[in-house]
């Protein structure tokens, strides 16, 4: 299954750094996300972006993970040639990620 079957997501930006919030639909999905969504996995998914580092923060009470993608937006909103200068589309792109299903999705 894809990440979109387990979670919704939102991206934001500060300078050249993109941040993506991934919110699991339930506790079981959150466990799967914690297991599957390593910073390395996120970085590999966006291999064509100039990311220097990925931080991950866990918010179990919200079933949410926060990823901070340093450098992802190049020079940031004011210095990038990106069509989507803010990286607003990146959260949706992340939802294409394949997830191994030890978990039964609420949509199955």
């Amino acid at each position, binding site marked *: 299954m894809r990440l*979109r079957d387990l979670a*919704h997501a*939102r991206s*934001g*930006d*500060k*300078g050249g*750094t993109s*941040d993506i*919030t991934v*919110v699991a639909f339930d506790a079981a999905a959150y466990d799967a996300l914690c297991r599957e969504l390593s910073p390395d996995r996120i970085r590999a998914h966006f*291999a*064509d*972006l100039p990311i220097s580092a990925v*931080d991950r*923060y866990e*918010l179990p*009470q*919200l079933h*949410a993970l*926060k990823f*901070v993608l340093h450098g992802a937006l190049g*020079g*940031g*909103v*004011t*210095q990038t*040639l*990106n*069509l*989507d200068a803010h990286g607003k*589309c*990146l959260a949706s*792109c992340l939802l*294409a990620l*394949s997830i191994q299903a030890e978990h039964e999705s609420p949509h199955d």
Partner: protein
Amino acid sequence: MPGSVRIGAGAGFADDRIEPAVELVERGELDFLVFECLAERTIALRQLERRRDPAAGFDPLLRDRMSAVLAGCRRRGVRIVTNAGAANPHGAAAVVADVARAASLRLRIAIVLGDDVLDLLDAPDAISANAYLGSEGIVEALDGGADVVVTGRVADAALFAGPLVHAHRWARDDWEHLASALTVGHLLECAGQVTGGYFADPGVNDVPGLADLGFPFADVGADGRIEIGKVAGTGGVVNVRTCTEQLLYEVHDPARYITPDAVVDFSRVWFTEVGESRVSVHGVDAGAPPATLKVSVGSVAGFVGEGEISYAGPGCLARADLALEILEKRLRDAGLDAAQFRFERIGVDATRRGADAAFPHNPAEVRVRVAGRVRTEADAERIGREVTGLWLNGPAGGGGARRRVTEEVAIRSTTVPRALVPTRVEWVEV
């Protein structure tokens, strides 16, 4: 909630819709209404406008917004706070005064100053330098009886924290209550983003009535209790999911959301749905802020030239690739620096650099885009003209060509000691 104060978000960015604010004023039973109109680079862009026209430099929609809400706010006792002053808070206050006079309204307008720190920095290339102020100037203005408070750069959350600190008379080191005030600010600062905007994904997160999205308000008790809601009958939804996305929006370490008023800890926040589109917020915490203030420094960064052209039907992708090949050669031959260019296909790999192999690539249409950063306006014009030139000289069936040139500003961040940035309030009476 008895003794609670209601604060609404009338705009979450400079181009935001105007009607939701009118709805909040007329039916929202507000005490305060906040218009947040400054993104990261807005002040630098407004400074460029002010260089061309000394009377400009504030939010261009301010007159329209004030004309739409000012009479209703005066009638209902709703007080307004806005950072629409941007690079010219005095000019913005003059517009508010003008709108008040035209409607025969009496008004006490406060201007919060001190964010412009360009003179403090040794930055010869800078066109603007603005410190992110905390809520103290806004509190002083409201304590002094302001009906409308106009600011330049103030931390977005402080625009909301100011009225709450003023109304509940919270102390500047009352971290527990400042945590509530700033969390409200963060949840409301993007207006419709907590009521279902930037959220809908059909089949996953369905949102009713997005065309008539209602903007949010918060009820905040003297004890710091928070409930987020919106006007009944408006479009959109407030639920745990919309609040979760907005709480973490543009936050890096959730345990350290740094503002000039306090460092807020969102890491243990949770939400409960307590009614239809009504969410209660729990678990906020905060501690003392840093001794320095963040400063955004703007400088001119040359020009960006862009051009786009569409190809459709069988073989459109191959024709788009041929178009890009032609553009690359011609721009390289023109002696422009090719390292500063972007060549891409909208519909394939423009918002998502590097085509995703998981998706089939048989588009019905594709749009070629070239963008380049150059030093002169003439070179930027050249880039777009190479694209429109494909109309007669490029692959078959190129259509809908567009070009544009943008003067760019770059933003960098630094910090200054808080003690060097005194806030002051000036007054305009109508």
